[in-house]
């Protein structure tokens, strides 16, 4: 069994998953670093992912889409915020329109991937954090109240759409 534990915390706005693999840290890192290998596991077999852009460096961006059984496409983007090969990777993950441009109103998720040696095996910890109260506070401190109010308005609009759907 590869998955060791998973924790869902609505209040902490986070999801934590710990898994162990029968391979060295360097090998597992390749599955994140090489877009052709990443494509083999990111999307389910019925919705495979294709990475069109993959600048695997801190500050770099990745653009991908997933293709459904009827040929429909769903786009996404990543922004790598920290890369410490071969042990740590952090990125923001969001939705993209048909041109690969970020759709800001859809919200983003921040992912932190950590790889550790566990006696010849590799322990992988994924922490997914959704847009949080803390991030909001930080943005307010940075003098972005204006932008924040806009974002909150968008969230309210999304919630309204959701309720009417």
């Amino acid at each position: 069994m590869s998955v060791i534990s998973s924790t869902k915390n609505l209040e902490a706005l986070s999801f934590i998953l710990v898994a162990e693999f029968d391979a060295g840290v360097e090998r597992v890192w390749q599955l994140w670093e090489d877009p052709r290998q990443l494509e083999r596991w990111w999307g389910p077999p019925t919705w495979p992912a294709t990475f069109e852009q993959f600048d695997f460096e801190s500050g770099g961006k990745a653009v991908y889409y997933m293709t459904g059984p009827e040929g429909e496409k769903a786009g996404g983007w990543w922004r790598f915020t920290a890369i410490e090969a071969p042990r740590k990777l952090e990125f923001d993950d969001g939705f993209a329109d048909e041109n690969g441009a970020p759709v800001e109103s859809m919200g983003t998720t921040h992912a932190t991937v950590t790889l550790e040696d566990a006696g010849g095996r590799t322990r992988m910890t994924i922490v997914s954090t959704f847009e949080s109260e803390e991030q909001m506070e930080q943005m307010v401190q940075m003098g972005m109240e204006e932008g924040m109010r806009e974002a909150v308005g968008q969230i309210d609009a999304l919630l309204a759409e959701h309720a009417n759907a």
Partner: protein
Amino acid sequence: MVVDQLRETELDRLFQAFADSTRRDIVRRVTAGEYSVSGLAGLYAMSFAAVQKHVAVLERASLVTKERRGREQIVRGNHQGLQKARRLLDDYEAIWRQRVSRIADILAEG
């Protein structure tokens, strides 16, 4: 169904409804028992209008229901909505469990 993408969008919306400590506290309280909006307003250091707004956000996210009873507006937890939130989290977990299993398969190829 756009498996990953749609579920993750819905999940984001839910998390956004939960992204406020007052809203989380309201959900906790009204899931245990009903409250009037004015009863809730008495619990927090903010205006009646501000509390009413939080309740409206939660209502739109299908996490609470609001019903007029005489002069009071009664707020209750929306168990279906909360169950859906729970299901979305389970789906998100399933997405990652499947990814982990695909990674294990690739690694097994050597």
